[in-house]
């Protein structure tokens, strides 16, 4: 039984993403849009969390590439462009977007439907 469990645990799995330059442009635009929105709305936390996420994701993505957990099937400058777009644009962009959506939703609920916020013990 234990052998079966260990076998299952170490069974290789893969998550692949087929991308292209258009994809990189689209995610860069989304990330830039999120950052510009944070700047225009003077959302300090949004801007700071975007900036904080850059070294975090440079490390995570870089760690994956160095250890072989992550692989790009391209060489040359596109390899580095992909790394930069993913770690500096895409992932920090999602982080900042998720934060801004959460912040807006929570403030909206606290002002319009306070009973929902007051629900529960925590």
């Amino acid at each position, binding site marked *: 039984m234990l052998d079966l469990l260990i076998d299952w645990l170490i069974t290789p799995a893969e998550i692949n993403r087929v991308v292209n330059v258009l994809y990189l442009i689209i995610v860069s635009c989304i990330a830039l849009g999120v950052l510009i929105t944070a700047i225009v709305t003077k959302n300090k936390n949004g801007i700071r969390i975007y900036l904080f996420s850059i070294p975090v994701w440079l490390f995570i993505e870089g760690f994956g590439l160095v250890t072989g957990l992550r692989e790009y099937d391209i060489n040359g400058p596109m390899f580095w462009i992909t790394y930069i777009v993913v770690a500096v644009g895409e992932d920090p962009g999602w982080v900042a977007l998720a934060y801004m959506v959460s*912040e807006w939703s929570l403030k909206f609920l606290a002002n319009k439907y306070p009973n929902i916020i007051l629900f529960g013990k925590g």
Partner: protein
Amino acid sequence: MDVMEFLLEPFEIQRHLTNMYYIGMALICVLAVVLAYKRGFIRVGAFLWLSSGLICLIWEVTLFLIGSRHYSFNPWLELSYHAFTEAGPGLIITFVTADALKIIDMSQLSDASLKKRSRKVLKELSKKMKPQEEDA
């Protein structure tokens, strides 16, 4: 190579993992919940998890449906698990860390602060309601 070819030439980003990864994500979820509870960020944590999970789900489903995303196991099960465990807990841990390092200020979104604001709104609402009741 023309512009369209350059824009659309496919290449692959692969993530090699084992099934152990899914167990690891479950443990990170537990860690994120404990951290959110200890720091008094249950509400914002829940919203961060929900919003990032939904954003991730919409994005992943779109990629999967246009054939850009491939899973090696059960696609829909893996996709849902991936969307709801990868984004939220990591985000909560990022925010708790950034707040602890004073990079961001989450005091306005702490449970205590949100409850205070909600109570104030409720008080104002009941004040507004009283004169109307007296008039009636």
